[in-house]
Each structure stands twice: as structure tokens, then as C-alpha cells.
């Protein structure tokens, strides 16, 4: 019996030639990632009680992104604590005000195929889009990782999701993952990995693959992997990674707990409705729902390709007077690229507000939280009650195209009528 990608990575980091789903293994962590809100200020006391010695200052990456820019004194205190901690520990890699951690660690080359990455955030699984085994852990568990570089993991079974066919006009990675979550259910992949494969996945850019992996946790999954290929190698080379990469793949005879076959060619734009990510419907069923705010951003869908799609739709148009449209590029690098391409001008002229890269309103932290009775159409990853502010608000999730089209009409809108046939 062969091994899945997950089994191969966990075999390597546990120093074994073969592991199988269900095995409990002690693993050596390649990258331990923390952000400001669930990082140093929560782990420091326990870390110091246990000696306060980092296992490797090159392998601990800290990103301040949730409290940036601070909206309250408490957030400013957390940000300062995080910055001072990184300095005192002499960390090689500390980033702040650069954007959400999951995007920042991808752009800076920390995420590589075959690596084991643990982070104090549930969307750490996004790194699976480049072929890393990446998953979220709690702050207490991170204390052990910081001290020893190790922890235990149960080798997960893998659900293989095969997306065949060509993705149609106006349909994007976000629509694929929402449909996948609808199918699997919000807890259907609990304790398991998801491996995305098939023609439609191979066709996706790196930007779009990251959308799928980012949201694997919304089906309960431990991680969401995509087989790395030359696109991944080229991307990492462009980021200055010159080491030989382990383009890991599942064996032909690997064992999967379940294989789902999906046809991308018949998929329509999808929307996740309040208050669960698996409450997914075709856009036609929710079209016309009035919104108060539109949010284009987040680690899920704030990358340059997302902003290009929005600009294509919004160029020369005005957003509805009844709403505000917040644009949050997923990193400073993306912000600069969008600026260079004139995208920020197009969006601003259409009436959008461009905010700085951060976790912002996606998690209800800063810069655009919603009040009671308000409705948001968002390109982010979670629509739980209270997620973006008031528990009496409502969050709908969709692709950047659906979000941009909704901004024009002030109500949930099928983006296809605003797209020229050449866009995809």
C-alpha cells in the first residue's frame, strides 16, 4: 500500500520510512508560526515557566496582523508586547503591518512543499496550497513546540476531492471550495486531510489554489493539500527560494477514506449564507438580497488576481450609494502590485475604500466591523454569527467577482453579467 501526501510528510518529519492513517507520531516542526492575537502575549508566561529557550530562532515566525493598526489601547498593548517579544527572542523572522500571516509566510518563502507548518490560527492550513502539511494549534500547544520543536500528531485519513473539467466563465476557486464544503459538510472532514486534485485544480494559479486550502478547515479538515508542480516551483523561485524542492505527491496505490468526483464545468457562482459555511446555494437563489457592506479582502481572497477581477468588473462603474465597499489587499506586496497596475485607482474611482492589509473586519477586530441588522457580502472565509461584529449581523460569502458585482447593485448579484468572455 502506498502513502498519501499527508502520510509521506508525516513520515519524513517523524523520521520513519512509512506511517499510516491512525498512527500517533512525534514530529519535528519545520515552521512554527504565531500571530499577535494568539501568540506571544498568551504563550509567554508558560514559555518562561518552562525555561524560555526557543528550539530554533530561524524556525519560529511571528506575524502581527490581527491588531494592525490597533483600534484600541488593548490591541496596541498586544502589538507592542509581540514586537518586544520577537526582538528579545532575537527572532530571524518577524513581520508586522505586512498583511495576514498566512499570506505573509507564503510570500516570504517560509511555505515549501513537504514542510510541516504549525500555527496558532485555524487557517494555517492555507499553506497546503503549496504542498505543505499545515494545521492550526492552540497557544498552549505552541509553548511545547517553541521549547522542543516537536509535538504529537495523529496521521489523518485523506478525503480526495477530484475536480474535473474546465472551470466556466465567472466561476472561481472560491465557488469550487464553497461547493466542496457544501458537499462534505462543515464537520465532514473532521480529523481528516483533504487533497484537492484533478484537471480543474491543475489549471488554477497559485493565488487560487491557496483559496481552496485556506478553507479546508471550514469542512473541519486538519489540512488541505494540493500536489505541488512546476507552478509552485516557479512561484517559490520568484520569491528567492533556490533550494531543491520536494514535489511530493500521493502514491497511485495510496488509500483514501473517500474520493469525491466533482465536475467544475457545470458549476455556477456559489454563496455561503448565514450562519454556517456549508449553508451554500447557487447565487441565483440568493440574488437580490440587499447588503450594507461589501468586503473584498482577507487571506482567503485578497490576492492580486482577486483585485484584478474586481477591477475588471468595477472599471468605469460606481458602487451602489446604499453601501460601502471595503477593499483589503492581503499583503503589502499585493497592495504595491495593485497600485502599480492602476487597480487601486479603478477601485477608488468606483467608490471603494482601500484599507491597509490586515485581518481587519474579517474576524471582527478592526476597520469595518458591522452593527446589528447589517448584512455583508464578503470574500473572506467564515460567516459565523458575530464573526464580523454584531451577533445580530449577517455575513454572506462569495468569490471576489460576486462581491464586486454585489457592490455595484447593492444587493447580491450574479457576477457573470458584468464579465467579458475573455476574463478567465
Amino acid at each position, binding site marked *: 500500500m502506498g502513502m498519501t501526501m499527508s502520510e509521506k510528510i508525516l513520515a519524513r518529519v517523524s523520521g520513519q520510512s512509512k506511517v499510516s492513517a491512525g498512527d*500517533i507520531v512525534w514530529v519535528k516542526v519545520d515552521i512554527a508560526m504565531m500571530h499577535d*492575537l*494568539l501568540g506571544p502575549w*498568551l504563550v509567554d508566561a*508558560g514559555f518562561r*515557566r*518552562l*525555561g524560555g529557550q526557543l528550539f530554533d530562532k530561524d524556525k519560529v515566525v511571528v506575524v502581527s496582523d490581527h*491588531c494592525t493598526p490597533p483600534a*484600541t489601547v*488593548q*490591541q496596541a*498593548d*498586544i502589538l507592542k508586547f509581540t514586537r518586544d517579544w520577537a526582538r528579545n527572542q532575537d527572532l530571524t523572522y518577524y513581520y508586522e503591518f505586512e498583511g495576514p500571516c498566512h499570506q505573509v509566510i507564503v510570500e516570504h518563502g517560509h511555505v515549501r512543499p513537504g514542510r510541516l507548518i504549525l*500555527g*496558532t*490560527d*485555524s487557517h*494555517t492550513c492555507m499553506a497546503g496550497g503549496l504542498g505543505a502539511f499545515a*494545521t*492550526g*494549534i*492552540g*497557544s*498552549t*500547544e505552541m*509553548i*511545547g513546540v517553541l*521549547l*522542543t520543536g516537536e509535538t*504529537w500528531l495523529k496521521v489523518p485519513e485523506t478525503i480526495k476531492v477530484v475536480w474535473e473539467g474546465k472551470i466556466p466563465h465567472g466561476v472561481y476557486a472560491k465557488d469550487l471550495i464553497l461547493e466542496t464544503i457544501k458537499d462534505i459538510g*462543515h*464537520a465532514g472532514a*473532521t*480529523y481528516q486531510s483533504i487533497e484537492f486534485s484533478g484537471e480543474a485544480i491543475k489549471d488554477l494559479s497559485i493565488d487560487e489554489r491557496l483559496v481552496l486550502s485556506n478553507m479546508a478547515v471550514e469542512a*473541519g479538515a*486538519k489540512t488541505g493539500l494540493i500536489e505541488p508542480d512546476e507552478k509552485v516551483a516557479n512561484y517559490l523561485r520568484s520569491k528567492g527560494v533556490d533550494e531543491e524542492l520536494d514535489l511530493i505527491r500521493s502514491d497511485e496505490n495510496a488509500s483514501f477514506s473517500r474520493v469525491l468526483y466533482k465536475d467544475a464545468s457545470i458549476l455556477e457562482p456559489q454563496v455561503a449564507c448565514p450562519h*454556517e459555511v456549508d449553508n451554500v446555494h447557487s447565487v441565483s437563489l440568493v440574488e437580490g438580497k440587499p447588503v450594507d457592506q461589501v468586503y473584498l479582502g482577507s487571506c482567503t481572497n485578497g490576492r492580486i488576481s482577486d483585485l484584478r477581477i474586481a477591477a475588471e468588473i468595477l472599471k468605469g462603474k460606481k458602487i451602489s450609494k446604499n453601501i460601502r465597499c471595503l477593499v483589503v489587499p492581503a499583503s503589502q506586496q499585493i497592495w504595491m502590485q495593485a497600485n502599480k497596475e492602476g487597480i487601486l485607482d479603478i477601485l477608488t474611482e468606483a467608490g471603494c475604500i482601500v484599507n491597509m492589509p490586515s485581518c481587519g473586519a474579517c*474576524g*471582527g*477586530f478592526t476597520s469595518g*466591523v458591522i452593527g446589528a441588522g447589517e448584512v455583508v457580502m464578503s470574500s473572506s472565509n*467564515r460567516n*459565523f*454569527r*458575530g*464573526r464580523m*461584529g454584531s*451577533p445580530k449581523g449577517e455575513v454572506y460569502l462569495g468569490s471576489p467577482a460576486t462581491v464586486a458585482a454585489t457592490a455595484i447593485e447593492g444587493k447580491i448579484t450574479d457576477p457573470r453579467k458584468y464579465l467579458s468572455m475573455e476574463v478567465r
Partner: protein
Amino acid sequence: MSFIIRGRVWKYGDNINTDIISPGQYMSLPVEKQAEHAMEAIDSTFSQKIKAGDILVAGSNFGSGSSRETAQMVLKHHKIGAIVATSFARIFYRNSINVGLPVVEIDTSVIQEGDDLEIDLLVGKVINHSQGTEYKGTKLPEHLIEMVKMGGLEPYLAKKLNIS
């Protein structure tokens, strides 16, 4: 951490996620302030009525969403005795064990609000004194029993790293 827990049941439904237990907008506040807002999206009386030793009972997928341990912190602040659910989200379950918050998986459909439950954590047995019934729940995985007996990950690490 005691392995026999007995307390009064507060019953909730499915998919009690971490944004409900620990809303993002309060996460930068001190834990006692955060705790005032625990569960308020679905039960505005939670933080007033909950008493030390009470047992939270819920349906499937308890603790889904974020890896935030503030969810455990606010429930521990209210001195919740244990959480009994039909199923837990993965990261929440793991974090609970790491911080010594007892979690047990059983089919909770017949348990009623106000029931008097007794849990034997190590063998995964739950006695419902109100209904005179007994349920067999999931047992802790063998490799975690030693850690739970020691009170969570930090004491376990202290021993492993030989720190007194």
C-alpha cells in the same frame, strides 16, 4: 484536575463555534471581561447563570472554527466542570486536553437541561442521575491519559524537560 465530575447540565445545540464562545471583538480584553461575552450570541444570560462545576452539553461539532484558546480560557474562567458533546471540532478538542478542560463525546440527544450528570473521565462513562441512565462515551486516547492525569500539557512538558 479531577477525573470524576458531577454537575448541572446547561444544554445547547449543534455547531457552537469559537466565535460564539469567544467573540473576536473582545479577544484583546482581559479574560474576565471576555468571559462576560461568552456565548452571548445565542444566550445572553450565559455568563450570569453559569456556576462553578456546571456541565455544558451540546450537539455535534462543538468548538468549530478558530484555534483561539480564549474559548477554553473563558469557559475555565466560569469554572465549567466539563463539556459533553455528540462531537467536537478537532482543534478545540485538542486544546481542551492541553489546558485541562474535560471533554467527553457521547450522543447527547436524550440529555435534558437541568439534568444531574456524573462523568468518569478516564473510562469515558457518564451517569445521568436525573434519568437513572448511564452512557458509554469515548475514552481518552491512551497516549494522552498520562498528560491529562498530570493536569495538561504544561505540567507534562515540565516533567519531560525536567523543570521543577
